[in-house]
């Protein structure tokens, strides 16, 4: 049993560097000093663009890679010991299956490595694999293989479930179905940590989101708070001739504005509070022809890393 004082995952000052294949680059710092505590029962999204260090972080939590510096414990144990104890399970991003086995045989095989596995039939059922259990892994679709990996993770009845971009290669329907089965598992009180580069998945599923970029944590908090940081809006409007510089100066000074520039005689504003800016622009500032669009997550990442992060 875990006491409430022991975090499920505990990272302090964790760094990981790799030798770059390009000798001129030298070392690449994939993870650059991370502090993170995840408590029992939390559902946490690790959100970030490709190359943010999400996979490397999860690999260290699972004991596949050792940190270059810093300390990691999982259930108060060294990561590899925690995995051997059977309390940790993970859904890997790709690979990790034998193509010439059937779906059911794969589940049976992995079940045999656990001292007290869940029933093979039960797990196949929960992962929605019943109809394809006699199919060879090589003839399964990407989504089906991912459900199989999910089934394998459930076999040991883990307290902590780690998922590295679990819905990669799934279509919308498969994605929906996958998160539905995940939700059922979350209700059993498991701690769940998943990496994703879809903001939507973090919003739909995680109470807490840790935003990563360039090997660092740039935001960490309840998902809707992080989303406000991450997903601002971009407004653009035409402003009466001659007034544009004056309006720009006024807008740029507002604390809710992240950036304001002139692009081809239109004023372009990035903000967390699009309603307020829209009101101002169309009202006292005399703007017209207003357009509002969601800022892309990538823009937000760049913004957050440039400003050194927020939380």
């Amino acid at each position, binding site marked *: 049993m875990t006491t409430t004082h022991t975090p499920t995952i505990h990272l302090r000052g964790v760094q990981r560097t790799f030798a770059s294949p390009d000798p001129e680059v030298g070392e690449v710092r994939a993870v650059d000093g991370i502090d993170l505590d995840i408590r029992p029962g939390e559902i946490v999204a690790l959100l970030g663009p490709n190359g943010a260090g999400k996979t490397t972080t999860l*690999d260290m939590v*699972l*004991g*596949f*890679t050792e940190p270059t510096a810093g300390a990691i414990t999982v259930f108060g144990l060294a990561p590899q010991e925690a*995995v*051997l*104890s*059977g309390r*940790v*399970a*993970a859904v*890997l991003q*790709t*690979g*990790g*299956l*034998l*193509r*010439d*086995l059937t779906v059911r*045989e794969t589940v*049976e*095989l*992995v*079940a*045999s*490595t*656990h*001292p*007290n596995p869940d029933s093979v039939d039960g797990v196949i059922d929960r992962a929605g694999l019943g109809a394809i259990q006699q199919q060879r892994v090589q003839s399964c679709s990407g989504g089906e293989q991912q459900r199989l*990996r999910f089934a*394998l*993770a459930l076999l*040991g009845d883990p307290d902590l479930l780690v998922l590295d971009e679990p819905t990669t290669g799934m279509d919308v329907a498969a994605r929906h179905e996958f998160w539905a089965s995940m939700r059922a598992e979350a209700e059993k009180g498991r701690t769940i940590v998943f990496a994703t580069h879809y903001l939507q998945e973090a919003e739909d599923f995680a109470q807490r989101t840790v935003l990563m970029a360039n090997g660092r944590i740039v935001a960490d908090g309840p998902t809707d708070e992080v989303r406000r940081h991450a997903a601002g809006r971009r407004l653009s409007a035409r402003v009466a001739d001659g007034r544009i510089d004056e309006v720009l100066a006024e807008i740029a000074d507002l604390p809710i504005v992240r950036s304001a520039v002139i692009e081809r005689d239109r004023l372009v504003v990035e903000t967390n509070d699009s309603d307020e800016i829209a009101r101002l622009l169309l009202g006292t500032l005399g703007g017209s022809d207003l357009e509002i669009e969601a800022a892309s997550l990538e823009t937000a990442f760049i913004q957050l890393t440039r400003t050194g992060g927020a939380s």
Partner: protein
Amino acid sequence: MTATTLKETITTESVRTGLRLNTTYYRLELRRIMRDKVTLFFTVGLPAVMYVIFGASPDYGDEPIRDGNVAMWIMIAMAAYGAVSATTGIGGSAAIERMQGWTRQLGLTPMRPAEFVAVKAATAMTVAAAPILIVFAIGALTGASAPLHVWVLSALVLVVGAMTFALYGLGFGLAFRSEAAVSAAGGALVVMAFFGNIFIPLNGWQLLVAKFTPLYGYVSLARRPLTGGNTIDPETGDLIPEPLWQVLANVSFWTIAFAMLTMVLVQKGRGRQ
């Protein structure tokens, strides 16, 4: 339920003894091998056919070697070729599995690396035994002859010695990291078998070179119960004494070389992940 009780007993047993053979995994490994009909033909069918052509059919098969005959001498060689083809394939497929992330998947289970090695070793022993048993059975029916202890000792040396080539297949696969490389490792066995005095009896300088190649020590050791520690001059049929240390040195050298190569490559692969 008796099944549950039995399972619990086995589990408790395994906790106490530390290591058990995972029979489910072992059974599934054998099933995978049975599915691969092409490889199965090359490891079991081909050596049997070659024995029939080169050992059982020709007249020289009846020529005596001590208490046995030449057919027996050829039979042991063909069984050796089948056994090392089989274990090379097992080693190579383990390298491919590692490349495809299966080792990572198992790294997420409570299974310890020693248990994995035990399953692979048991599988390799079993697949090595298959061509040996079949070629020996055909030999027994088609005129290979020797005292019983020669059959038993040769078969034992063949099964155990074939394990060296599981390391060879694993090392080859880890070094070149592709399925084609593993096939190439199997192909290279043909060349090694020629220089290992397996397909054609060698003499002169060819025999001298052969003594340094990986398959030579293995097959010479397996033939030793028959030849009593001699090589055979293919021209005259004379027995030429060969010191035991030469054969053992060959087997030890190559086993250690393949094992070290594999260890270095596994370490290197870990750094890359």
